[in-house]
């Protein structure tokens, strides 16, 4: 029955075309991107002569920075400790505060739609403004020193964690919550008995990422005077003590990498 086979072949619709004509939207985006890119390259003013000068300067910097000067290691170590303290305090407070923020911002746990929108707006603001700018603001508010850095890290952590916590909370399967609601439990009992435990593993993972992030930002916050090792680094750079700066950078490198190792070790064990 070859005709049957032939008939069947005819009945099968044609395969989709190999290429699609790009939509107007895609073309507009591509042109806008190209325009920005070209303008950016022009703005950077790249010339062979400047590139050469940059390479020479970099070479001179490295020559001056080597060997690193570890004579002020005690000061550097103390500043590094202060950095770690700032990060730990800031991230701990930030993570704890992220939980209520996240609960208020999730559809399934918020007391009201408007509360949710308002909280989401606050979280988005915290996240969108970079940590260095928060540090500048808090330096104005509470003066130079680690407190400004801690406050900046708290805000930055909430912006990061509350968002991911909220996303996880919205994904929680409704079953366990319904089971606890069915026993006659109140709203808070259901939230802290079912929703929070269900999200616990993911929250721990996110929090550890937040710790790594906080240590990196604690290092830079000192550049604007918010305490920690960044203060030492910017001083050394400004006084052209490049060998001391190199020592500081190395200490930072060792501590941050070490911390990330510990953190990923914990994350693997928890998740």
């Amino acid at each position, binding site marked *: 029955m070859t005709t049957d086979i032939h008939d069947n072949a005819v009945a099968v619709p044609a395969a989709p075309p190999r290429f699609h004509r790009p939509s107007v939207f895609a073309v507009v985006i591509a042109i806008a991107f190209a325009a920005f890119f070209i303008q950016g390259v022009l703005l950077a003013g790249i010339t062979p002569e400047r590139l050469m000068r940059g390479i020479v300067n970099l070479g001179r910097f490295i020559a001056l920075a080597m060997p690193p000067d570890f004579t002020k290691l005690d000061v550097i170590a103390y500043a590094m400790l202060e950095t770690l303290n700032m990060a730990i305090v800031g991230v701990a407070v930030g993570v704890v505060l992220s939980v209520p923020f996240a609960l208020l911002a999730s559809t399934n746990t918020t007391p009201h739609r408007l509360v949710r929108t308002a909280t989401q707006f606050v979280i988005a603001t915290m996240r969108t403004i970079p940590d260095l700018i928060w540090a500048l603001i808090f330096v104005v508010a509470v003066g130079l020193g680690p407190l400004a850095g801690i406050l900046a890290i708290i805000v930055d952590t909430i912006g990061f964690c509350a968002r991911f916590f909220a996303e996880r909370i919205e994904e929680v399967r409704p079953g366990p919550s319904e089971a606890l609601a069915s*026993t*006659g439990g*109140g709203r808070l*009992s259901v939230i*802290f008995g079912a929703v929070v435990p269900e999200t616990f*593993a993911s929250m721990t993972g996110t929090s550890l990422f937040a710790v790594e992030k906080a240590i990196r930002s604690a290092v830079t916050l000192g550049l604007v005077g918010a305490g920690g090792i960044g203060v030492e680094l910017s001083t050394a750079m400004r006084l052209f003590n490049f060998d001391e700066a190199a020592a500081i950078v190395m200490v930072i490198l060792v501590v941050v990498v070490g911390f990330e190792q510990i953190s990923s070790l914990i994350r693997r064990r928890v998740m």
Partner: protein
Amino acid sequence: MAAALEVKGLKKSFGDVTVLRGVDFTLAKGEGAVLLGANGCGKSTMLRCLNRLTSFESGTVRVHGTDVSTLAGAKLKIVRRELGYVFQQFNLIGNVSVFQNVLFGALGHPGGGLINSLSAFAPQAERDRAMHCLERVGLADKAPFRAHALSGGQQQRVAIARMLMQSPTIVIADEPIASLDPKAGREVLELLFRIVSEERLTVLCTLHQLDLAREFGPRIIGMKDGRVVIDAATDSIHISELEGLYRADGATSAASASRHAAE
């Protein structure tokens, strides 16, 4: 004496989709019934209306005489305490211990609440009671394990222990064995119905296996297209009537629609 459960003219729709078109049935205290019906006929929705996990548009649901349709807050919680649910997906809390899951059964008790239901702070008497409930489902040795470390059959038995901890007067089981293998399923069903008869509880249980339904349910309630079309003592129903519930043609005999159980 008020019936344990009295449902009249219960209607519910999700947007344009009408799921329940007027469900009527009554369960006397201590009575047991199996609820049958094809996928999507509205069984789960109806069961969720009984304690207002889902709200409904019209009709009444009375639990021991109390109309639940307008209840809220503390009064709703008091009614919910009377209805112990067992779900197809067990609905245990994954990251906490089996013991903690059972303790959560007492969340709605007077003087219960979250703090008194946490393993660390619960009164000794409650902790003992939780262990007793686990003992009754044969899982006392699993108390410290995380709930998700257990097999499906074991998880459902933990859910039954949690329901025991709640000490309800009515048990609502929505396909309690649908995610279990035949052997574990039968064991769980036997356990559930043994506990129900020992505690003289009222029970309404949905199943998809006709043979199990006829074996365990003294009475069968059959739903089709959002209505109760069969409601009779199991012995008086012919198997072909039950099979009719699953036919798409809607040809349910008028005789079975009008027949009701002699109570």
